[in-house]
C-alpha cells in the first residue's frame, strides 16, 4: 500500500516536472514569437491596411478610406506585363538553378565527408562577399572587351554584347541564387543511405534507373524547398535587374521600390506588394498540393 502510494507520488512528481518542463518550453518560444509579431506580422498588417488607403502626394497625408482603387490600378497593362516579365525571369532563374544545382549537389553528396565539406565551403564562400560587389563584378565580366566578350570574340569572331540585356539579368540571378538551390538538395541527397544504391543495383537497376526510381524521388523534398527558396525572392528581385539590365528591363520589384522611395505613394506601393504576396502564396499552395502527388509516384 505504502509502495503504491509512493509510486503514485513519484508519478505525480514526474508529471509535475514534465508540466513545468513544457511550460518552460513554451516560454522559450516567446522571444521568437515576439520578434515575428513585431517585425513580420504587424508590418504585414500595416502594409495591408495601407493598401486600402489613398494618399495626398503633396502633403503625404494618408486617408484610410478603404478603397480598392489601388488594386484596380494593378490590372493595367503596364503592371500586368511587368508582373509576367518578373514571373518569366523568376521561373527561368529557378529552372536554371535546379538544372545546375541538382547535378552539383548530387556530385558533392557522393564524395567522401572531408571532400564534401571542402566543396560545400566553395559553394558558400562567395556569400561572404557583398551582394552588390558580386553583382557589379558581372558588369566587368560581361562588358564589351571584358573576359567573356574576349573569349566569345576569340571563338566566334563576334562580340558577345550580352550586358544590359534580359540574358545578363538571368545570368546574374542564377549565379546569386544557385547556392540557395544547392544546399537543400544536398541535404536531401546526403540523407540517402548508400545501401539503397546497392539494393537498387542488386535488383538490376542501371545508374539512370537508380537515379530515376530511387535518388530523384528521395531528393524531391529538397528540390521543392530549393524551388521555393529561389523562386520567391527571385520574383521580387529588383537590384540585379537594375545593375545588369541597364535599367531597360522593368521588374515588379522595381515598380514597388519606386512607389515607396521615389513617389512616396505608400498605399499604391503596398497594394502592389500585397498583390505580389498573394500571387506567390497561391503558387506556394499549389506547389504544396502537387508535392504529395509527385512524391507518391
Amino acid at each position: 500500500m505504502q509502495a503504491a502510494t509512493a509510486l503514485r507520488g513519484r508519478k505525480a512528481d514526474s508529471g509535475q516536472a514534465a508540466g513545468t518542463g513544457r511550460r518552460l518550453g513554451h516560454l522559450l518560444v516567446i522571444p521568437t514569437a515576439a520578434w515575428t509579431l513585431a517585425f513580420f506580422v504587424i508590418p504585414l498588417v500595416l502594409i495591408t491596411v495601407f493598401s486600402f488607403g489613398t494618399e495626398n502626394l503633396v502633403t503625404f497625408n494618408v486617408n484610410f478610406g478603404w478603397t480598392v482603387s489601388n488594386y484596380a490600378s494593378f490590372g493595367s497593362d503596364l503592371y500586368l506585363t511587368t508582373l509576367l516579365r518578373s514571373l518569366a525571369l523568376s521561373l527561368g532563374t529557378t529552372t536554371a538553378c535546379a538544372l545546375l544545382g541538382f547535378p552539383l549537389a548530387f556530385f558533392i553528396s557522393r564524395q567522401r565527408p572531408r571532400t564534401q565539406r571542402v566543396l560545400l565551403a566553395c559553394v558558400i564562400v562567395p556569400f561572404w562577399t557583398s551582394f552588390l560587389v558580386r553583382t557589379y563584378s558581372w558588369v566587368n565580366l560581361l562588358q564589351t572587351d571584358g573576359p567573356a566578350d574576349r573569349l566569345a570574340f576569340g571563338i566566334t569572331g563576334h562580340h558577345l554584347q550580352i550586358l544590359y540585356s534580359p540574358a545578363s539579368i538571368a545570368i546574374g540571378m542564377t549565379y546569386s541564387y544557385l547556392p540557395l538551390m544547392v544546399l537543400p538538395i544536398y541535404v536531401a541527397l546526403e540523407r540517402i543511405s548508400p545501401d539503397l544504391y546497392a539494393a537498387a543495383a542488386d535488383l538490376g537497376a542501371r545508374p539512370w534507373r537508380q537515379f530515376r526510381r530511387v535518388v530523384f524521388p528521395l531528393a524531391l523534398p529538397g528540390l521543392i524547398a530549393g524551388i521555393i527558396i529561389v523562386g520567391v525572392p527571385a520574383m521580387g528581385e529588383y537590384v540585379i535587374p537594375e545593375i545588369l539590365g541597364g535599367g531597360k528591363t522593368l521588374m515588379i520589384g522595381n515598380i514597388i521600390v519606386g512607389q515607396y522611395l521615389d513617389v512616396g505613394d505608400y498605399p499604391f506601393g503596398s497594394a502592389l506588394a500585397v498583390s505580389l504576396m498573394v500571387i506567390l502564396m497561391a503558387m506556394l499552395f499549389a506547389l504544396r498540393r502537387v508535392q504529395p502527388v509527385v512524391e507518391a509516384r
Partner: protein
Amino acid sequence: MVGPGECSGNGEAGLPSRRQLLRRGAALALAVPSAALLEACGGSSPSTGAGSSPASLAGTAVMENYPDWMGAHVVQDFQKLHPGSVIKQVSNSSSSISGTVQQLKTGDFDFGLADVSATEQAVDIGLVQPLDWSKIPNIKYVAQSFRTAYPHGIPTDYGKIGIGYRPDLVGEKITSWHDVWRLAPKFSGKIVFIDLDRDCMGSTLKYLGYSGNSTVPSQLTACKNALIQIKPHLQAFLGVNYGQGLQDGSTVIAMDYDYDVALNQQKQPKIEWVFPSEGMVAYLEGWIAVKSSKVVPLIESFMNFALEPKQYADFVNTTGTAYVEPAATPFIGKSISGSTILRPGKAIANVEFEHYLGPATALWTQIWDEVKAA
C-alpha cells in the same frame, strides 16, 4: 536662368541614395586636387567675415544632409567660433524628393539640404521657416540668378545635364539633342542615358522643344514616345558611371552630368561636352530651415558662416560640386573653377532648373515606368 560666368563646378541631384552616393564618389575624385590646392592657400582656417559675429549661440541644430556633403572644416570652425553651439548632421535613408520632404515633416530636423523640387513641395505644405535675411548678409556673395531660383533658403550647388561624346569615333560634331536622336541608329548599342526620370525625361522634353518641367499630358506622351523610339539603340539607362564607357569607346554618346564628363575628360581628353542648342535641365539645391525648429537664430548664423567665401570654397573643394558663389572662385581649386565644361559662360543661359511637379509627379513616374517597361 543663370547669368553668364556666374558659376562652375560639378554637382549632384537630390535623388535615390545609393546612386547618389556613387555619384558623389565621382565628384569627390574630381575634388581631390582642388582640396590640396586650398590647403596650400590656407583657405580652411576659421574666418568670421561679413555678418558673422562671435556672439553666444548655444544649442543644437539637427541637419538633414547627404553623407559628407559639407565642407571638411565648416562645422568644426563654426562650433569653435560659437562655443556651446552644435551642428549635428544626420544622413537620410532616402534622398528622393518625396523622401526628403517626409524626413523634414517628421519634426526631427531643424534644417536640411533640399533641391528646388523638394523645397517647393515643403513650402506648399507649410514646412519651411522663412529666413531673416538681415541675419544672413553673406547671401550677397551668391549670384542673383541662384537666389531668385532658390528663394526659400540658401542655394549651395547645382548641376547640368548635357551630352558627352567622342568626336573621333562619331566622326562629326554634335551640337544638339536632335543630333543624338538622329545618330542613334548609326551608333546603336553605344549610347547611354541617365536612369533618372527627372533628368532623362527633362532632357527629352528639351529635345522636343518643351519645358523640362512640363506637366502637360500630351507633351509627356510625346516624351515617352521619343524615349521608346530611341530605347532600342541605347546600351543602357545608367544610374552610375554614366560616361565611363566614353573612356574606352564602348560608349560614344552619353546623356551625362557636367561633373561626370569633366572627370572622364581628365582620363580621356578626346571626350567633349556639348551644351545642346535646345537647352538643358539642371538641378539646384540648398539649405532650408524647418518651421518647427526652436533654434532658427543658430541656423541663420550657421548659414551665414557657411556662405563666407573661404568656408563656401571649403564646401566646394570637399564635395567637388558646381558652385553658386562667384566670390569664392579665388579659393576654389583650378580643376573646378578652370574647367571649360564646368565654367560654361553664356551657354548656361539655356539652363532650366528642375521644379516641383505637384500632382503630376505620379504621372511622370508612370510614364517613366512605361518607358522602362517598353
